[in-house]
């Protein structure tokens, strides 16, 4: 039973624990957040530790339980986490996040052509369709929302339900292979895979880009000022906003984030996401 | 049908068989006697192809190589019976037919045991009731098992019959009747080579072969056997 004695909780709370939803490959996440932890630690003068999480829901729960102090959430998971964690608040997003987009893609063999009118999403009825993770904003929530606006519900897909690939890359791979005839994913992931030459355009075609919506953002616990000193949350926000492409390490961080800069954000920016989440039953 | 010439099988301390020659013709019944450890079981194992002698030669039905098809013509009644636990009596009897069956008969037999009537007849020959057929082997007594093993030999319909002390666990009157059954089987083209633990059951055999320390002591008719011969056997 000696084993089970707590390891100095007071000490542990002096470390700023940052994390992120696992929407990319782990190696990249480790590199990115390792760098960011060093950067924040240098700027703020407190130890910063990156705690990897492999599940969207786990990130929300970890945040609610106070095991994580600052988390890079997706739109939906951020709102879920914030609603479950009194006092927490949005502090920043990327410049690209204010106007984020999803893409609908299809396998060439599905006989679908690119379209520009949202109502053409109806062509997806009866197709095998894949979302990303259940909790993904760009890979599930917003695509499902735009589908619903066009009059397509999940029951309209082949076998009466969509599939959940678990990640954007997996959606792309599964649509490209033909397991699913069509799917929706993060527009940014699509663009960068296209640029890296990892998309076989003979096999997969971009159907439609969604209208913009607010997505990823940083959420901080409400008790950081008590734990790290008055004004800490403000300083934390400022150091994120200060990241600039002119300094080498910061440049790498921003590149890995695929962002030009971080910009301030507030809870209200995500009211829309919350409404969509509620309408689709993902927020109760 | 069986011809052993100068057969030697090495053992840990001394050879289990040394320079042994023996032959068996169709229709012949040969009894194998000797003290325990004299090499009776080894000789039978050479005869059914389990053990290959290091020197000397063995011929079955005139051939030196024992092909798989030929093996089905050799039937062995093992000392340790070698029945399959977990199977019913009828399934065990039918394992004697495996080599003769086509693959679909083998598969079909797994689902529903085939040839109930021949199985019942084989049981009747060893004085067991047909009601035993569906029972699991594990529910039989030692004596019953021994008779099931004999019935399996009957099902195999082999020509060269080898038996290693098949009557050990039976009460004497029954053992005598089954011995008569075995002897009766050995009509041409069949022949019987059988090891015996008792030297007072030799009547009915055509020849008696005595072994001591892996060597042939005598090979003669039961009538020609003298008390001195037997005494030498167990000394």
């Amino acid at each position, binding site marked *: 039973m000696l084993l089970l004695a707590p390891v100095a909780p007071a000490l542990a709370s002096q470390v700023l624990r940052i994390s992120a939803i696992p929407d990319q490959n782990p190696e990249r996440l480790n590199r990115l957040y390792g760098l960011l932890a060093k950067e924040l630690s240098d700027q703020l003068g407190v130890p910063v530790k990156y705690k990897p999480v492999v599940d969207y829901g786990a990130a929300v729960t970890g945040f609610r339980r106070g095991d994580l102090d600052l988390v890079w959430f997706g739109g939906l998971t951020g709102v879920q986490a914030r609603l479950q964690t009194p006092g927490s608040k949005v502090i920043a997003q990327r410049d690209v996040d204010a106007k984020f987009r999803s893409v609908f893609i299809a396998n060439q063999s599905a006989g679908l052509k690119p379209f520009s009118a949202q109502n053409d999403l109806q062509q997806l009825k009866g197709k095998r369709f894949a979302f990303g993770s*259940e909790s993904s904003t760009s890979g599930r929530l917003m695509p499902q929302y735009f589908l619903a606006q066009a009059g397509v519900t999940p029951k309209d897909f082949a076998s009466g339900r969509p599939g959940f690939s678990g990640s954007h890359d997996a959606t792309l791979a599964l649509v490209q292979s033909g397991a699913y005839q069509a799917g929706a994913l993060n527009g940014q992931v699509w663009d960068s895979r296209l640029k890296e030459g990892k998309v076989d355009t003979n096999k997969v075609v971009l159907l439609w880009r969604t209208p913009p919506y607010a997505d990823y953002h940083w959420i901080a616990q409400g008790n950081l000022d008590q734990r790290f000193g008055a004004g800490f949350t403000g300083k934390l926000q400022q150091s994120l906003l200060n990241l600039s492409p002119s300094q080498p390490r910061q440049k790498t961080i921003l590149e890995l984030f695929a962002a030009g800069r971080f910009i301030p954000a507030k809870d209200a920016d995500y009211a829309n996401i919350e409404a969509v989440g509620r309408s689709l039953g993902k927020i109760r | 049908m069986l011809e052993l010439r100068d057969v030697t099988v090495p053992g840990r301390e001394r050879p289990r068989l040394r320079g042994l020659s023996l032959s068996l013709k169709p229709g012949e019944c040969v009894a194998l006697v000797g003290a325990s450890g004299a090499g009776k079981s080894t000789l039978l194992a050479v005869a059914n192809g*389990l053990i290959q002698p290091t020197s000397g030669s063995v011929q079955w039905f005139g051939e030196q190589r024992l092909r798989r098809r030929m093996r089905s013509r050799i039937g062995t009644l093992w000392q340790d019976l070698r029945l399959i636990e977990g199977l019913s009596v009828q399934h065990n009897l039918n394992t004697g037919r495996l080599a003769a069956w086509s693959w679909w008969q*083998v598969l079909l037999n797994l689902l529903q045991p085939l040839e109930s009537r021949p199985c019942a007849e084989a049981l009747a020959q060893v004085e067991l009731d047909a009601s035993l057929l569906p029972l699991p082997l594990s529910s039989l007594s030692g004596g019953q098992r021994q008779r099931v093993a004999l019935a399996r030999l009957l099902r195999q319909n082999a020509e060269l019959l080898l038996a290693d002390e098949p009557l050990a666990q039976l009460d004497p009157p029954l053992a005598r009747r089954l011995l008569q059954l075995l002897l009766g089987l050995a009509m041409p083209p069949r022949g019987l080579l059988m090891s015996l633990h008792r030297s007072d059951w030799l009547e009915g055999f055509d020849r008696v072969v005595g072994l001591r320390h892996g060597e042939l002591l005598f090979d003669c008719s039961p009538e020609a056997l003298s008390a001195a011969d037997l005494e030498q056997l167990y000394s």
Partner: protein
Amino acid sequence: MSPAGQLLLPALVLLPLLALLPGAWHGGGFDLIGQFLLAAVQPSTDPALIVASLRGIAVTVAVALWSWLFSLLLGVIGGVLSAEVVSRTLWGCSWPALLLRRLLAIPRSLHELLWGLILLQLLGLHPAVAVLAIALPYGALFARVVAEQLDGLPRRNLEALQLAGAPAPAALLMALSPPLWPQLLSYGGYRLECALRSATLLGVFGLGGIGADLRLALQSLQFHEVWTSLWLLAAVMLALELALARLRQRWQEPNRELLVGFAALLLLLLPSSQWLELRWQVLFSPWQWPEVLPLWDPNGWLQDWPQLIGSTLLLTALAALLAVALLPLLLLLLGPGRWPRLLLSACGLLARLLPPPLTALLLLFVLQPGLLPAVLALGIHNAGILGRLGLEGLDALPPQPAQALRLAGSSPRQVLLVAGFNGIGRSYLSFGAYRADVILRESVVVGLVGAGGLGVVLLESLSSFAWGEVLPVLVVYAVLTLVGEQLADLYRRRLLSGPLPREGCSPLANS
């Protein structure tokens, strides 16, 4: 029907599966499967990745060991207290044992993954949560085995000691513990292998360790990195299996080496739990229920239960039949030689190494989503587990009956079929019945391939934090599992008794 017949009959399940195959085959990701297989010979050797993988393995092994230890502890205590013979000896009545036995059915009825997902929501993401998630159902299962073993032991010695005036606890200890040990140790060793697989699977669902690395690398199609983790996991799993197989042969007579090894293991565990940050204190911090999330929601109970349960059961049945059928069938097709055996062992190791959700993802590269990839993923994984037990069983059979058949002219395949399959038939099938039970609980993990069923609903409600919907699904799962357990028990009992058994000569005695 003979045991071998019962062993081969499940192979009929291949007919509908093969019939489904042409319709579900799309083959579009065949190059991906190729890349995946090619990557096996060139795993990533990036030092940082190897260090991360080693750490992942260490966490998984630590979780497995700790959860195993706790489950043994829980199991022995719970098992002794829920054994009728103990209850009757100590208290003179058997209802306390029977009551406890019923209560222990509850933790047992949920798969460790479900426990993991629930505790994850309640306690956050810590390997310590995974330890608890595995220890609870395993402990309850172990308790059941202990109780059954205890009640199955002959009581003559106990009665003799009691009549001689020995106090009840001492009499119990003296009379019942010696015959109990070997069986418990052998079963307990097997549970450690299970714990390693469970710890890997829980990692896939977010509780840390190598499973997490595997999932993330596979989902982002980093096959070289996947194989770095897989090879490490394979080495650990194989080493564990071989070590346990060796120990099992010696467990009949407990020896000093064993105790020393065990003590060394414990000594290693103590510092490792600190180093790996298992963080036990989370288990004792107050359990927070998120107030905003109501547990009771009448709407949550309104689901299309017949359809959900039906598709879950169909998936379970097909996968279980496939799992049972694969080994006998492949053995018969490939023949009983040494190389086919080696090939089968290697395939089996890979099959049980890869958690089913990841197998399912791989299958989707060539198959359309639906029932088939789900059945294959679960079936293949469990065939890997059953297959090893089957091969071990074949090796342990006495060689004489097979020899007799061979000498009577049967072909090697016939010998395998008649002596081999009939020899292992009953124990293999009774284990298969138990696996069916496990597969039912595992069906939750292949929701991703779109097979439908309860798993999909569960993961969806969990991701919405809709506890009002999670609860009914858990209740249904628990009921299904308990009913399934009863059926598996009935089947096993029927199987073990055989046709028209006679008293006192149950084949169980020699199995």
